[in-house]
Every structure is written in C-alpha cells, then in structure tokens.
C-alpha cells in the first residue's frame, strides 16, 4: 500500500502552487525509444557527404590500427582505441563548422584528426612528450581530457562566453557512457540548460566503462532519457550508422546555433577493442557479443549500402584504402624518431611569471644537466 492509497491520504495532499508544476512539457524532450537510423531505411543520401564519411571512417580505422601497433612497439605509452566507434568520431567532427569548438575525451583522438588536427600532434599526449600537443585555440579543439566528464562544463562555459560575445559558436562535448555517472556530467547539463548555452553533448555509449557494463552504470531507460530532467531534448541514435549520427548531430548543432539551447545525444555503439592495451576484455565479455557487433560494423554497413546504391564502387573503396595506407605510413615514419625534448621546459609554463622558487629549482636542474654533460 502506497501513501497515496492510505485512507484519507488525498485530503492531506496539498495542492502545489503553480511554480511547482513542470515548466516544460517533458514529452517533446523524450528520445524515441528506438535509435535513429538512416542506413537501410531508403532515406535519401547526399553522395558527396557519404563518400567523405566513408573515407574518414576508413582512415580512422587505419589510424586506430596504426596507433595500436605503435603502442606495441613502445612508441606510445598507451592508446585507447576507438575501433568500432569511428562513425561517432567522424560524424562529431564533420558536424561542426570551423569556428565551433570540440571538447574530446582521451578516446577521441580520431575526432580531433577528422577535424584536421595533425595525426602526430594528436598523439603527443599518448606518446608522452607534451600533454596537449597542439594549440587548442588554433584548432578549436580542447585538450584531450583524461579525467572523466570534467571537460563538459568547459564546453558549457565556452559556449556561454561565445554567446555573451555575440559569436554564433557551438561547442560539442564528447563523453562515454561511464562518464555520465560523474557529477560533472550532471552539473554541465544543468548549467547548459539553465543558461540555454549553445552546446551539444554526445555520449558514445560503447557498452563498457573499462569492464563495467551499462546495466551496472545506470538504471535509466537510456542515457538520452537523462536529458528530460534538465529540460533539454534527448536523442537516441545508432552510433554505427554514420549518416544517422551526422544527421542527428548536425540538427542539434544547428539548433544550438540558432539559440535553441543544448541537446543530449546518446549514440549506441560498441568498443571492439579492449579499453586500452592494458586491459583484458575477455574477462568481462564473450566473443559471441563481439561477433554480433562485428556484423554491425560502421564501415561495413556504410560500404554495403553505398555500393548497393551505386555511390561507391571498387575504385572508390580502393582509393579510400590507399589514402588510409598513405596516412599510416607517414604516421609510422614520423613516430619512429625519438622526440627531442628540453628538460628546462619543465619550468617554462607553470606560471606566466616564474616564481623565485621555480627559478631556484630550474637552476638546480640546469646544474645537474651540465654536470651530466661533462
């Protein structure tokens, strides 16, 4: 028996004043229960865009493989592969205009590369020679963020600041399914909705936070459902369907740009590799599940559809593969050399002006280096 069912309970129930009622009808904010799909629906496809998406997917897959190989060769400290998630990465980057900002997490190297970042610069964090590896302002790509979900409020603040300055800039923030459990995820979404900031949140739900499956992460019907409580629309999309992800993201970006406020998008995808090279995925998932997702591979389903429609042919497939090989060869060659680092850089950018304490420590290191050199 609930409180409402107790005899006489209704008489004691106060009538809420108007301010207590929901301010927004939640129905339009709710995501469709089925992930949005384009492939296999007979929807019209923009051939030029499709070929662009396809080329970036193939290049991205090759990039993931090459970076993983570099890790095994000791050239990278670690590499969190996004194999299987390339559609999310590529669509995220291609949905943005040049003036927009991307806020990636540590797994989103591909999104940064698809946005035009030098493939080597995108790996310096993981190689270990310079944390960020590029000027975030130059590319409008925030540093790849390792702490979970902490980059989301940055995206909100930047989008808010841009709007205050009168610029029609949109911020796109990427986060994983595990990151949605963090407090910063909640605070970022809440700030974004209250401020109506032009920001889009893309959750790449790849099934696992390292080893913990989504069912142990959340009891929500879907991660996109979380949007409703903040007063922003939630969208659910097939994260392996590149045209679908691109369409949903483009709509959310356009909506944010015209002052419509933030959107939360959940892209349902799958991480085909382990969390990083340090992880053993066989401990927490069976090969049958991985095989099932292999049938729904983002490159394969796009290639099949584009070929069937005559947008892509053998020549196109070969061209994309060759371009990816060229990129990989260049990456291998450029990553083969040991970077030359100046130890004195340790003290260079801690503060705008070096403190007396750091000047003393810099002098100590310089003396040590000179002694070593003798």
């Amino acid at each position, binding site marked *: 028996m609930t409180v409402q069912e107790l005899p006489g309970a209704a008489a004691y129930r106060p009538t809420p004043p108007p301010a207590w009622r929901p301010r927004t009808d939640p129905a339009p904010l709710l995501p469709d229960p089925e992930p949005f799909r384009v492939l296999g629906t007979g929807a019209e496809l923009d051939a030029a865009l499709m070929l662009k998406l396809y080329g970036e997917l193939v290049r991205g897959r090759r990039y993931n493989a090459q970076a993983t190989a570099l890790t095994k060769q000791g050239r990278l400290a670690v590499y969190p592969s996004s194999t299987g998630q390339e559609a999310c990465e590529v669509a995220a980057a291609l949905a943005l205009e040049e003036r927009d900002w991307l806020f990636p997490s540590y797994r989103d190297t591909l999104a940064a590369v698809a946005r035009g970042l030098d493939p080597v610069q995108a790996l310096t964090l993981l190689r270990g020679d310079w*944390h960020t590896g590029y000027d975030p302002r130059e590319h409008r790509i925030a540093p790849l963020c390792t702490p979970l979900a902490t980059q989301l409020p*940055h995206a909100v*603040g930047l989008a808010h*600041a841009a709007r205050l300055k009168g610029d029609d800039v949109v911020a796109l923030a990427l986060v994983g399914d595990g990151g949605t459990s963090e407090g910063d995820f909640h605070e970022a979404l809440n700030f974004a909705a209250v401020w109506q900031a032009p920001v889009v949140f893309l959750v790449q739900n790849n099934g696992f936070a390292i080893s913990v499956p989504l069912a142990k992460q959340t009891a929500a019907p879907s991660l996109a459902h979380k949007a409703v409580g903040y007063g922003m629309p939630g969208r659910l999309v097939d994260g392996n369907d590149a045209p679908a992800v691109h369409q949903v993201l483009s709509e959310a970006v356009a909506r944010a740009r015209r002052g419509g406020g933030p959107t939360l998008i959940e892209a349902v995808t799958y991480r085909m590799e382990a969390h990083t090279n340090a992880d053993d995925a066989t401990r927490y998932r069976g090969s049958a599940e991985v095989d099932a997702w292999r049938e729904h591979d983002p490159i394969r389903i796009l290639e099949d559809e584009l070929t069937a429609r005559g947008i892509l042919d053998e020549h196109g497939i070969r061209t994309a593969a060759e371009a990816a090989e060229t990129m990989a060869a260049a990456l291998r060659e450029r990553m083969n050399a040991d970077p030359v680092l100046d130890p004195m850089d340790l003290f260079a950018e*801690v503060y*705008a002006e070096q403190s007396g304490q750091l000047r003393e420590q810099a002098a100590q290191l310089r003396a040590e280096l000179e002694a070593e050199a003798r």
Partner: protein
Amino acid sequence: MTTATAKKPATMAQALQRAMRDAMAEDPSVHVLGEDVGALGGVFRVTDGLAKEFGEDRCTDTPLAEAGILGTAVGMAMYGLRPVVEMQFDAFAYPAFEQLISHVAKMRNRTGGAMPMPIVVRVPYGGGIGGVEHHSDSSEAYYMATPGLKVVTPATVEDAYGLLREAIASDDPVVFLEPKRLYWSKSDWSPEAPVTVEPIGRAVVRRTGHSATLITYGPSVPVCMEAAEAAREEGWDLEVVDLRSLVPFDDETVCASVRRTGRAVVVHESAGFGGPGGEIAARVTERCFHHLEAPVLRVAGFDIPYPPPMLEKHHLPGVDRVLDAVARLQWEAEH
C-alpha cells in the same frame, strides 16, 4: 595625489567589492559568477551592486554547484574572458577541487603556454565568526600544495583592494582567500581613494622589531600585531611579517627579517600538521640556519576538525598562545 574628500572608514568587504567594480569597469572581459552573487550581493555582500551596475551577464547567479561554477569558468577563460568566481564558504569549495587541480592549475602547463587560465577563485575562509560546522575551514594548505596556483590572502582593507586588483589582472589562476572575520574590519582608507597596488608575491613588514619575527598572514595578522604590542611589557620588541601571498612565497622579505631578529614564530589558524607553518619553518631554517638563535616555532590551530562555535576560542591561536611561543624561543641560550 590624495583627494580632498572626507575619509570615511571602509570595510574589507567594501574594498573587495570596489576592486571588482573597478576591474569590471576597466575591462569588459571580467565576469563575476557564483551562488547568490547577484540580487543578494553575496552572503557577505561582497558583490553588492555589481549585477545592478553591470547586468546579470557580467555578475551571474549560477546554479548551486561549485564544480560547475569553476568548470564553466574554465570554458569562459578558454574563450578569453576573465572570470572571478565566488565560492560561498571555504568548505563549500571542495566539490570544485577536481576542476581546480586537474584543469585550472594545469591548463597553462598542459597546453605549453597556449591556454592561460586568468581565473580568480574567491574563497571566504577561516573561523572566528561563530559559524556552524563546514563554515570555518582554513583550506590554504590544500591550495598551496598545488603547483600552478597562486594563493593570496589579505589582512588589511588596503591590501584587500590592491591584491584583488592584482589577482584579477594576473594571467595565472589565483585562489584568493578572504579572511571572513576581517570582512567588517575597518580602516581610514576611503573606497574612493587611490591606492598603491603591490604585485602578488611580496610580503610586508607590518611592524618592525628586533627581538623575534612573527611570520603570519590573513586572519592571524591582527592577532600578531596585538601580541607584539603586549610583548612590549615583557621586554620583547617583535617584528611582524604579513606574507600576503603564500604562493609565490617571498623568501627574501621573510629571511631578511629573521636574519635581523634571529628568532621566528609562524602563526596561522589552520592545522599545524601538514600546514603552511611546517613549510615556512623549513624554508626559514634552510636559508637562515646560522642566524637562528632558536628553532623556528609554530603556533597553529590544533590538528582537529574545526570545532563547534562555542569551543572555537580554545582552538584559534590567540595573543596568549603567540606570547607563550615567543617565551619558548630559548632566550637564556643568548648568553
């Protein structure tokens, strides 16, 4: 260039408010944000009138979420604004620690200097106002332990203005600790009068003396000044050094004083173990060992969670505890 206007005593809270107002008037990129900073003017009224004068886009009431406030400030700074964040109370600033330590303090370094974080985090701190739990923490040691942050705390009305202007002008992130029991302290300084603004990182000798040096900052400065006056009756002529900036640390001024006096006591109200006093005592000993006539002593709060208000008078270092420490400086060894 003194003005002819009659001086009326100003409070530290007014000086801080004036500093933000002047900075906002001079630089449109300065934005104030925090909980209750708008219509209410802050729970201590430090942001009083800013929203009215500059609009809610420049002085913004945020949702109640410290990590969100500082996290969005990071994004605002990325886009070229200079956010001044108010954390309502010392202990309420803790949810923002991850943003502060992982991003605010490190962004310049991570990006090779490409992305400075000109953010000021204003934190009312310390006890002595009869606050209930979680309203009286001295959190300076946590901030001091984080490279990349400047940590500043004023003890006078004039410094409150000058240091906050410097903090807002700084391209580095500054944790600006406001001793809340000094918010209503007064001085003859008029909020309208011009002031000399000292760069961050310089300590000041508040009182000269030759017997021993009291090294202190923030809310303990008035305590030490009072102790120095009382010490005259005991025959001690104490020098008082107000650090003003804990990071960067002014070794020069502190050590020059200790070399003159030969004895030193560090005084602060945060816990002694792992507190700023240990670092300061070590620095002084490393640099002034042959000038010292006695070990550097510490007078600090006890190593306890901040006590309930009816007991805080037993916890906070007062004049007597400072004088007791001075008495323990091995005076007989002089001979």
